[in-house]
């Protein structure tokens, strides 16, 4: 520790800290542009020049380390003159077009020029003009306003891991831009809007929409993935204008993924369902809520009486709030059935009895950052959880090595030490080999076995290992086997396990009881109900869907569609109405989105995060919890008389506190029944959701759709398979299944493993895909 004096205040600081850090900690403001606490030091804007005793020159506070006895003045005549002269330079070529600039009112240059600018400029020459260019659907460029602080460039290199922006030219011709008219590709690019201190990089969807001081700010959660980034919704007169990041060190730090930042564009979409609608003999009829609830409960009762409660299934989106999940559980169980599920993207439930109370990760983001070995198993983490890649990058910065085991060679924005890519059918065997498990079919090549053992050896030498697993695992046909093997590996490596679960609230869904084998707080039910997939395969009579569009949200959408079309009653609670929904639904009830209601989301680390309504529910739609409560009341279900969402939350929390179920089960009980399939000669399906089509809201954000990846109607296969099947890249093909067939365009890619057919879900072209054998037919 050293003692220094800043503006007369004696301060303690660690030797080597920069003056600006010490001043910030002591609440002494030093003006700055290029300095950003999350980025490396550039020291190029020169705005933070301060007066250090015994130094002729003013020194940049951002790049000058403190030493014992340093006397610093940030407001002496010399310091202020230096700062003002730099401000004059920064402003001579700046257009000063604040009245038409979206940054106006929240612009660092505007603010600092008030405090550190001269009242007039000596500059009377012509100003520089810089061409703008299109860098994608999220960001406008007004490069004449750029002050070349290079925050955006350092963000790309250091945080996003994709250097999209760079400098071209020199001197006052210098320009920040993409390389030869490329667009910005990082899925964290929206942060550039926040990080740019001036109006050079601004939000494109927000352009010319509002002034920042007119907007009301409401804290909320982005419910599109299991991290639940903290956000502020900015609104004016019941319209959402934009989303900005809310700092939360434990969750999203100061960053947001583009998905979280621009999903709001889907909220006030033209497909929003305005009122309850009923299918009657003469077509679709609009109803008021009173009639709608009475009619819905009447129809439901009739159907249950006619077909028994066992013919009812309730399927809820894992993106629902904790309160909605709890009420849904209460409602469905009260109907006399245990057919309830939120696991719409899983197909192997054989280990469900042995699962812990919830799939909450045994670690924090901080644990990930401080790991020295990270094993990623079956996850396209950069798409599933873009923000966690920042933590992984910071772990790498601290010397961590990253190992990847995946069924496809996903590109990551961080460096990987070693990776093994195998056909998804072989993933369980690969994990077994790593964990030294015997009794395998022995189909893995020796080279792969050796690589797996070498990765295991490297990890065994690490002090702190994290294992991260995601969608390729939970969607897998033998997910149970892999979960057991992962627990085994975790024990052998004394590692921490992170589950990237489906949706925003899987933990909430397990705790609330939206699973067929347990009710709230893990209470075992008398007889297990059907999982989501099984309830569709069983072709039941009554389905109650909440917040999902099965044709785009379910793992085998074709099975869902077939079941729904034959059912005698399909009740859908949804914010949106679609053509396809009109085909299978009998009753549609409009519910509010996350921006219009309050609720709780429990993220992968187990933190309960609350949203509050930023706008009133639009049209006649109601918050989901109210719809479920009112339906419960109109069905005369006891204990559904809640006055507020808070009451619901209180009740479920009380139930949870009384739970006796251990949070950590001993999954290895099932080791005996491990299943290993052999890799068949058939093509193995590998399915994935496009990163910006994960739920009904993101699918309707036009900006997200423009930047979507993996969303084209393409089927990807390996070149060797293409040769074997005499297919060529770009060829029209038809995928044939037992009950349906659908056309796609073939894309031949080296990164797809052999015997693999890799196709996107969540798009219309594949909404008929059913479980079972699939073949490629030439057109």
């Amino acid at each position, binding site marked *: 520790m050293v003692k220094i004096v800043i503006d007369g205040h004696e301060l303690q600081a660690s030797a080597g800290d920069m003056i600006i850090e010490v001043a910030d900690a002591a609440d002494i403001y030093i003006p700055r542009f290029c300095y950003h606490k999350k980025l490396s030091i550039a020291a190029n804007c020169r705005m933070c020049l301060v007066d250090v005793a015994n130094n002729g020159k003013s020194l940049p506070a951002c790049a000058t380390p403190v030493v014992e006895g340093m006397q610093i003045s940030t407001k002496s005549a010399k310091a202020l003159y230096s700062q003002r002269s*730099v401000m004059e330079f920064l402003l001579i070529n700046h257009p000063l077009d604040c009245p038409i600039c979206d940054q106006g009112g929240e612009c660092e240059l505007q603010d600092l020029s008030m405090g550190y600018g001269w009242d007039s400029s000596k500059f009377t*020459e012509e100003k520089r003009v810089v061409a703008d260019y299109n860098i994608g659907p999220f960001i406008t460029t007004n490069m004449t306003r750029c002050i*070349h602080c290079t925050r955006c460039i350092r963000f790309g290199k250091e945080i996003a891991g994709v250097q999209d922006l760079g400098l071209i030219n020199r*001197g*006052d011709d210098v320009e920040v831009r993409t390389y030869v008219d490329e667009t910005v590709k990082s899925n964290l690019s929206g942060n550039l809007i926040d990080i740019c201190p001036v109006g050079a990089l601004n939000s494109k969807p927000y352009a010319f929409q509002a002034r920042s001081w007119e907007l009301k700010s409401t804290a909320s959660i982005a419910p599109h993935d299991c991290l639940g980034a903290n956000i502020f919704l900015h609104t004016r007169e019941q319209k959402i204008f934009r989303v900005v990041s809310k700092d939360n060190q434990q969750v999203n730090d100061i960053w947001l993924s583009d998905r979280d930042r621009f999903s709001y564009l889907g909220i006030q979409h033209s497909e929003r369902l305005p009122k309850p609608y009923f299918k009657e003999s003469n077509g679709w009829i609009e109803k008021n809520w009173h009639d709608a609830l009475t009619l819905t409960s009447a129809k439901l009762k009739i159907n249950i009486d006619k077909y028994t409660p066992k013919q009812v299934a309730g399927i809820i989106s894992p993106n629902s709030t904790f309160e909605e999940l709890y009420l849904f559980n209460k409602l469905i169980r009260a109907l006399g059935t245990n057919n309830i599920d939120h696991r719409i993207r899983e197909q192997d439930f054989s280990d469900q009895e042995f699962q812990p109370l919830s799939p909450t990760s045994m670690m924090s983001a901080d644990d990930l950052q401080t790991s020295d070995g990270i094993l990623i198993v079956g996850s396209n983490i950069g798409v599933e959880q873009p923000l966690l890649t920042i933590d992984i990058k910071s772990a790498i910065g601290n010397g961590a090595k990253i190992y990847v085991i995946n069924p496809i060679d996903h590109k990551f924005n961080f460096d990987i030490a070693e990776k093994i890519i195998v056909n998804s059918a072989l993933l369980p065997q690969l994990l077994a080999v790593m964990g030294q498990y015997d009794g395998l079919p022995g189909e893995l090549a020796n080279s792969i076995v050796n690589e797996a053992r070498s990765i295991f050896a490297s990890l065994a030498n690490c002090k702190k290992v994290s294992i991260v697993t995601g969608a390729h695992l939970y969607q897998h046909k033998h997910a149970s086997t892999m979960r057991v093997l992962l627990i085994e590996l975790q024990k052998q490596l004394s590692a921490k396990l992170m589950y990237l679960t489906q949706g925003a609230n899987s933990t909430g869904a397990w705790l609330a009881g939206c699973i067929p084998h347990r009710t709230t707080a893990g209470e075992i039910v008398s007889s297990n109900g059907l999982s989501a997939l099984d309830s569709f395969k069983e072709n039941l009579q009554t389905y109650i869907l909440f917040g999902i569009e099965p044709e785009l949200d379910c793992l085998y959408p074709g099975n869902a569609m077939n079941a729904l079309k034959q059912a005698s009653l399909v009740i859908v609670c949804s914010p949106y109405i679609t053509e396809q929904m009109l085909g299978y639904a009998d009753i549609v009830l409009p519910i509010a989105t996350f921006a219009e209601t309050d609720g709780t989301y429990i993220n992968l680390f187990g933190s309960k995060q609350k949203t509050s309504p930023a706008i009133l529910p639009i049209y006649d739609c109601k918050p989901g919890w109210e719809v479920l409560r009112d339906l419960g009341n109109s069905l005369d279900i006891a204990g559904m008389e809640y006055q507020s969402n808070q009451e619901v939350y209180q009740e479920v929390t009380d139930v949870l506190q009384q739970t006796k179920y251990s949070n950590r089960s001993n999954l290895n009980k099932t080791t005996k029944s491990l299943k290993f399939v052999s890799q068949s000669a058939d093509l193995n399906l590998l399915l994935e959701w496009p990163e910006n089509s994960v739920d009904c809201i993101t699918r309707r954000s036009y900006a997200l759709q423009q930047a979507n990846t993996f969303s084209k109607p393409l089927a990807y296969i390996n070149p060797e398979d293409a040769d074997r099947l005499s297919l060529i890249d770009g060829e029209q093909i038809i995928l044939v299944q037992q009950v349906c067939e659908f056309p796609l365009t073939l894309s031949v890619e080296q990164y797809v493993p052999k015997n693999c057919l890799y196709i996107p879900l969540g798009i219309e072209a594949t909404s008929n895909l059913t479980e079972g054998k699939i073949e490629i037919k030439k057109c």
Partner: protein
Amino acid sequence: MANEVCFRTLSLEDPTSLSTYESIGGYSTWKSIIKGELTAINIVEELKKSCLRGRGGAGFPTGLKWSFLNKDIPGQKYVVCNSDEGEPGTCKDRDIMRYNPHQVIEGLAIAGFAMGADTGYNYLRGEYIEPFSVMEHALGEAYSAGLLGKGVMGSSITFNLYNHLGAGSYICGEETALLNSLEGGRGLPRFKPPFPANFGLYGKPTTVNNTESFASVPVILEKGAKWFLELGTDNSGGTKIFSVSGHVMKPGNFEVGLGIPFADLLSMAGGLATDRTLKAVIPGGSSMKILAGEIMMQVNMDYDSLRNAGSSLGSGAVIIMDDTTCMVSVLLRLAEFYHDESCGQCSPCREGTGWLVKILNRIIKGQGKKGDLDTLVNIANNIEGRTICAFGEAVAWPIQSFIDNFHDEFAFFVKEGHSMIIN
């Protein structure tokens, strides 16, 4: 006496060849190092005694600089030769490389040994295609003769050297910008500290010296520090190559002892044309302050004398201007150069260099305004000392010294709309 150090092969036949160089004692120091007859401490001490000062412009004592990079620090280290000779008026390194390439190679090898670096880079400015090919040829000769490489001549000493041609940017002559450029990045100067001796090329300890400095080293070690020191003055040891240009009859490079009276150097360069008088001289490359002719005629060409006269020896580029020179036009030309060459990193330099050119251009077009001269000086003052590298000073000093020394001429141009010099 002239051409005794860096240009010592100049008068010989085939001056660039290995055999010529060896015939005058070349590589004898390197060979005695290989035989273990010289220690790193000997070398650094000898350099300190010789008072060799950096020939690139800053004049930092070379021996002291080499002592910062301790031979015993473990790990990779580098020596880098700064042949990015971009300072307007300077062309001495070009001719050292063109006529005496082996001496540069030997100097770098000795430096590598003295500081424990097994790898050296010679970074040449992009336009030096001919010197590059001469250096490449000489490097090939040295490797073929077994003078470089792994375990030179069966010893435990390893030294590999690479010539690298830059892309023609003035700022890459700034040592940290040079390192960035050598790494393949943009040639932007780095903020210091850390200095290259701690965090240099690829983050490893690195020493960067000018070509002329490296080329002086073998001769100093062959002939002794005392011999070298006595070629110059007390605090400015040895010889210096002056690149004399401008209004002289025989412009060129002259390697002479430091401390030579400017008047003598001027007559070596053939003096001025008849009927012309000396108006002004920039004595150390365009970044240094301009001095009036009458002051220059009293000055000796060494570090201290020029400092006392209000300028600096710089890179040794002596730019002579006679009485037909319009100072406003010269300053505009210089300002345009600095505007073109600013890397664009720091706000004062990026914005200030363009602003200076805009005002000077307006003055030249006869649209000068009252207050323009104050603004020019004010801009220069506000750039000076507020940037990452010394380019800020290089921009500011000409502006300040031109307007200070020739204020009347500038004021005349602003007021009358044309130059007071009628040619």
